């Protein structure tokens, strides 16, 4: 993140980099890169912690609206002028934060003290690490790694380890069950997640996130963006990625490790006060990171959907797309019941993995047929691409849902 911003970009586009250069300019040259790195980390931490706070409120509001009620709206910011202390409950996250910070921290006597303490720390650390490789804007990536996608998944793997640590160290049976569930879930969903990403890597020819975004640049016919999600394999890959991401971030309907109605609060049962808040934060970080990766890989990253809209700076586009995905997460959470453990693993192994493998072939076909000349042949190519993924979807889907169907009922004579 040390490259200067090209002057061809608009001023708004360059603002973050200019700010960075302004601050690093105060330091001597040899340690500038360190400062820049720290600055990036700090910015990510601050920005995403703020977004996390607002997201908790947003989620509560959205779920409330779905349920025909207003949600938190009485906790304003009393120190904010001209609002009479009421701004849509904007103070709610702050109040929650203050409360969580001042709450007593309980460690059960039977618990594994060290692991119990380490789990939330490890979790937050790993989930923050994943942000490092996501390009938030045209020139905004903390570390432009060659193997960025691989890094993302490597860092993400640590989070599940932390969930296991939390569950196991609490020495509570519900937590232990949650730990087992978290492990099984991870083992099951890491594979479809990776497999859904492979076609993108294949077609972009790169593991670097900036490279993948660059591969989606431009517009077909001048108005259709070349985002991967708009191709048949990309759409299928995105759906698989999204489902697997839901599972990876332990969100409904895959929130089995902290299934309230079954396991109290799962691995969080024994956590109180600030540690609990850390877990909560890490869950949102994980959700944001996976959404960010999804945006990067499938939705064209920070690219604008239309050439005219490029005046809006790229990081805003990225933010908008990220929000869209997160809203989708929330919408799903407000609607669906939870799966059972065996159904969860079956969905992964018998549905997502085969589909992801087929999608791999589909992507290969797409790559090989890229040179088919003429619009009609391109249409045929598109049709084949859709058919290759939709037909297996129906077939596998029917097998998966065998024995499960709406029923008709009889009435007593």
């Amino acid at each position: 993140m040390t490259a200067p911003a090209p002057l061809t970009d608009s001023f708004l586009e360059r603002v973050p980099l200019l700010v960075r250069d302004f601050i690093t300019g105060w330091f001597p040259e040899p340690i500038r890169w360190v400062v820049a790195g720290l600055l990036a980390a700090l910015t990510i931490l601050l920005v995403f912690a703020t977004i996390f706070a607002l997201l908790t409120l947003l989620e509560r509001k959205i779920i409330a609206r779905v349920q025909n009620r207003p949600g938190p709206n009485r906790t304003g910011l009393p120190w904010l002028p001209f609002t009479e202390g009421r701004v849509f409950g904007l103070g709610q996250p702050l109040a929650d934060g203050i409360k969580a910070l001042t709450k007593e921290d309980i460690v059960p006597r039977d618990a594994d003290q060290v692991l119990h303490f380490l789990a939330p720390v490890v979790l937050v650390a790993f989930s923050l690490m994943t942000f490092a490789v996501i390009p938030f804007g045209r020139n905004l990536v903390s570390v432009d790694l060659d193997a960025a996608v691989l890094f993302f998944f490597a860092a993400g793997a640590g989070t599940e380890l932390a969930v296991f640590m939390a569950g196991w160290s609490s020495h509570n049976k519900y937590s232990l069950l949650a730990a087992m569930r978290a492990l099984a879930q991870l083992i099951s969903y890491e594979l479809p997640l990776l497999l859904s990403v492979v076609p993108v890597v294949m077609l972009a020819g790169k593991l670097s996130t900036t490279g993948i975004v660059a591969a989606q640049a431009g517009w077909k016919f001048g108005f259709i963006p070349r985002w991967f999600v708009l191709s048949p394999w990309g759409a299928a890959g995105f759906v698989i990625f999204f489902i697997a991401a839901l599972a990876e971030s332990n969100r409904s309907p895959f929130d089995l490790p902290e299934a309230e109605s079954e396991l109290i609060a799962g691995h969080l049962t024994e956590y109180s006060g600030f540690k609990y808040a850390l877990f909560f934060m890490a869950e949102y970080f994980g959700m944001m990171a996976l959404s960010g990766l999804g945006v990067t890989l499938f939705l064209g990253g920070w690219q604008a959907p239309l050439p005219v809209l490029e005046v809006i700076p790229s990081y805003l586009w990225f933010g908008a797309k990220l929000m869209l995905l997160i809203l989708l997460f929330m919408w799903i959470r407000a609607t669906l019941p939870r799966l059972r453990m065996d159904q969860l693993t079956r969905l992964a192994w018998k549905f997502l993995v085969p589909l992801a493998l087929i999608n791999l072939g589909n992507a290969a076909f797409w790559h090989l047929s890229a040179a088919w000349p003429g619009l009609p042949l391109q249409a045929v190519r598109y049709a084949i691409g859709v058919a290759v993924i939709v037909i297996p979807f129906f077939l596998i889907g029917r097998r998966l849902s065998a024995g499960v169907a709406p029923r008709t009922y009889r009435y007593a004579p």
Partner: protein
Amino acid sequence: MLGSGIIQGLAVTAKNLVGSFHDPARFTTTQYPEERTKLPENYRNFPFLVADAANDPIGSLRCVACQICEKECPPQCIYIEKSKDKKPDAAGKQQFFPAVFDIDTSVCMSCQICVEVCPFDAIKMDQVFEIATPERFNALLLDRGQLAKPNTYYQQIHPTEAAEVDARLAADRKAGEEKAKAAAAAAAAKAAAAKAAPAAPASTAPSAPKSPAVPGTEAPKPPTTA
């Protein structure tokens, strides 16, 4: 198709999400302290004692300490002590009155049986529900000073029922007065020398407390602002 049911469900929630911004049927919240739902007339919470005179609630209680409600109260939360002496009621008849009338609202189950069994329309159900308090013994045991509320208040919270009751009482009183008049006439005819004294009820009862200790019952005002 796999997923169609899920999409249908998502459509319903989306409809509700959007609807909550413009459709009152999909935004059902009454934002309590500022807005209030209109309590139905029949709503009941805890009993209170009807007093005929607003300026002297304790002195003009309709209750004659017959103790029927005390006996019938299922959770047994009423405590009554009958007065030693009698005093005239609103109709001018000499009646006992409750020297002590306590209701333990920490026990009361708001069943309204005391109201049903009361032959004197002296105990009615109140509608005040904002009585949360950090105190238990000092605040939740209501004595007759806290329980007594004027008839006008009763007319405010249960207008239909109060109108019926008032009509019935008025009829009773009229009948009573006519009877008394007849009796008086008879008495006058019999012995014109003595002067009957069906005087207006003079309040000799103990003075009312200045301010009851329970929050929420300080001033008898209707709880609904509709």
